[in-house]
């Protein structure tokens, strides 16, 4: 399986977020997306799953299920945790598992893996920020999907939880999954492909300056 982007551009709110972006990630590989605040890391992830419109360029997933769109084969872990405070921890996860069309047998093991099994009956309103994040990570484990798009996955997680997340990502890669992560810190996965959105903008600006220069 291989996710590739050719000359991708995204405009949001009347401004170019990024342009001329190309990358390719294959099964078992990680692409980390770095850049300063506002460089377009989140916009890139949202563009890939169709939550922001592609202004220009092409995006393709080869070797996936041809019947499904990229978004339907992807998990998106955004800034918000998509949890309902009125529902319990277990009910929240059960809802997403059901909504994403998976069977329920992985719910318990997933809660176990993120260390929330003892809190399954607690309303999500009482969870801390880190626990909420762990619960939304449990969604990635309960429903199998090949493509993981993670937006600052380690924010609010403590050191132990970060290590667990690294373990989940390793396991996902070994199973042939693909991970795209927008991050400031290290994911603990060793050397990974890196996409620097700052450089991209700098080189685009330089190219434009050259054109205008003569």
């Amino acid at each position: 399986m291989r996710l590739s982007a050719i000359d991708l551009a995204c405009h949001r709110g009347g401004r170019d977020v990024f342009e001329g972006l190309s990358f390719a990630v294959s099964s078992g590989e990680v692409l980390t997306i770095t850049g300063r605040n506002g460089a377009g890391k989140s916009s890139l992830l949202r563009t890939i799953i169709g939550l922001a419109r592609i202004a220009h360029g092409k995006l393709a997933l080869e070797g996936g299920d041809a019947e499904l769109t990229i978004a339907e084969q992807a998990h998106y872990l955004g800034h918000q945790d998509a949890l309902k405070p009125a529902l319990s921890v277990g009910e929240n996860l059960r809802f997403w598992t059901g909504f994403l069309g998976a069977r329920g047998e992985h719910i318990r093991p997933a809660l176990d893996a993120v260390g929330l099994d003892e809190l399954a009956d607690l309303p999500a309103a009482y969870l801390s920020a880190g626990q909420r994040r762990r619960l939304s990570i449990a969604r990635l484990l309960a429903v199998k999907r090949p493509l993981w798009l993670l937006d600052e996955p380690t924010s609010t997680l403590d050191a132990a939880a970060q290590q667990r997340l690294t373990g989940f990502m390793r396991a996902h890669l070994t199973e042939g999954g693909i991970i795209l992560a927008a991050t400031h810190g290290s994911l603990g996965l060793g050397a990974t492909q890196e996409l620097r959105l700052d450089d991209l903008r700098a080189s685009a600006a330089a190219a434009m300056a050259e054109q205008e220069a003569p």
Partner: protein
Amino acid sequence: MSPLVAILVRDMRIAIRVGGGALMGVLFFLVVVTLVPFAVGPDLALLKRIGPAILWLAALLASLLALDRLFASDHEDGSLDLILMSRAPLELVVAVKGIAHWLTTGLPLIVAAPLIGLFLNLDPPAEAALVLTLLVGTPALTFIGLIGAAIAVALRRGGLLLAVIVLPLTVPVLIFGVAAANAAVAGPVPFGTPFTILCALTLASLVVGPFAAAAALRQEME
């Protein structure tokens, strides 16, 4: 469990939990209707005459009450992103959310209406007609409200904006709902005429509401 069943179960569960919309809607309905006799005075003939209109107005306001959070809460906590990504057609998801909203706020009003009708000196035939018109008409209120709820998300404003958008659109439903209820008691128009139009309005809103609301939500995302 299919995606749509999952949404239905989740929304109904949230609505009936403490602080959810279901109980608040009925209590609001009760309070508004109870206030009327205090304001109008103990004129039983007058109450009887305006009773159906009062109940309809109260039902309209009560069904608006929880509506502005319908998509806004999903938008704020990121659930809407995951819903938009999914395979389930947005129009159907929106319709199912409307059904869940009606089952938890509209249906309790209809159950409470005969009891509350006693406060307004309505006799049994009038109450039966009123319950029937509410049963047919309140889904229209919810599904017209869906459009307003989705636009409120797109404009990032909740609360009063929703009322300003939705209330004018509900005027036809109100007219024919009250007309049918009155016709059953007083005449001279037969009950069937306004009631059939009310049914038509509801059917039209069941179709138009989800499509318009889904379009507004998609627009918001871009």
